[in-house]
């Protein structure tokens, strides 16, 4: 039982916090933060589970998480572009997204 088990667990907690934030927080930017948090949490789980500190780390999850990070930043950019456009068309709508 190495202390490295804390990272995947932290990842899962981050996932939960992100999900809660995404669902409950009205401000759109906070929602974007929330889903980035979820993505990082899931990535921590993906890499963290495989690493028990003994043998060399497994490159496959690392490659996958690298792809995940790039995909997340692309998704964030699209969301933020839409939010910027929305804030111009409907200034008050940005917070009250039902």
């Amino acid at each position, binding site marked *: 039982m*190495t*202390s*490295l*088990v*804390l*990272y995947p*667990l*932290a990842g*899962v*907690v*981050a*996932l*939960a*916090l*992100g*999900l*809660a*934030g995404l*669902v*409950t*927080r*009205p*401000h759109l*930017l906070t929602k*974007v*933060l929330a889903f*980035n*948090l979820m993505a*990082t*949490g899931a990535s921590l789980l993906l*890499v*963290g*589970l*495989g*690493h028990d500190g003994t043998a*060399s*780390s*497994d*490159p*496959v999850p*690392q*490659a*996958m*998480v*690298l*792809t995940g*990070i*790039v995909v*997340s*930043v*692309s998704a964030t*950019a699209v969301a*933020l*572009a839409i*939010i*910027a*456009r929305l804030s111009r*068309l409907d*200034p008050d709508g940005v*917070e009250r997204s039902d």
Partner: protein
Amino acid sequence: MSLAAWVFDGTLTLTLVVLGWGAVAARDPFTGIVRYITFGLMAALAWARLGAPDLALAEAAIGAGLTGALLLSTLGRMGLRQASRRAGEALGAAPRAPTPLPGMAQAWSGLVLGLSLAIAAVIGGVARTLHGRNGPGLGPLVDSLRETSGIDSPVAVVLLDLRGYDTLLETAVLFTAVLAVWCLGVIRFRRPPWPVDPVLASLARVVTALLVLVAAYLLQLGLHGPGGGFQAGAVLAAAGVLWTLADRRALRLGESRLARIGLTLGLGAFLVAAVIPMLAGRSFLTYAAGSAPAWAWVLETFIAVSVGLTLTALFMGGLSEIAEDEAEERAP
């Protein structure tokens, strides 16, 4: 494991969780973004601790750096009027249409948080049983295949050869992001002379040159150690962001033909690498025997350039046109 490791890991993971919650529960978005950037840096530290230097670099450059820059730029673009008005607001309740029962918002948030944590507990429980149970996973298999492939760095061999198809789709996702941002219309900025901050301008010139150097170093390092196309691209993007802030002329990136070709280099190079074997009768994305390192080098370079340009274009947030006059700047 020694006590010191437990203390370090414990504090790092605790910080991660606290910062994560702080980012989400922040009263106003600006505080949230700042906390998120710190969270990103802590996550980079976590990757390093988990023996994944490539991820640490990428998380720092892209996860914390660029995403933070994007968030702040959007917050700015949303106009200071809203940011300030929001600053003083109560948690979550929009001023104009307060929810009928203010308590409802809290109760609902509490319920969802509880549910999410319950789900997390289930996943965590199952994760604990899987932790480290199967040893290094596919690590040894990848090492054995490295010789046949010819690429040294384990992560690079997975990224560019074994699971090269994932990376191809990933460059397509990046390309989609640029198109999505550009199709959402035009972001207008006031015509220069933009009051150029002399310190920023000189800093930008020096740092940009440095960043390009670092990017080149990371690029060549990538083939046999941590680093590679994406990390180099991210550092290039940092240079691009800085250049955009320092010199408004950079905003005409969308119109120049060179930039457009640069944006498609990553996906284009991968498609060429995928199609040539098919024309030669081999299966999709099968490099000719022994040519993997050469292809890897070409792909890494093209990916670095296109990721750099793409992330910079994403930061600009749209096909930028210089607004003719003050009034039009606010026009949609």
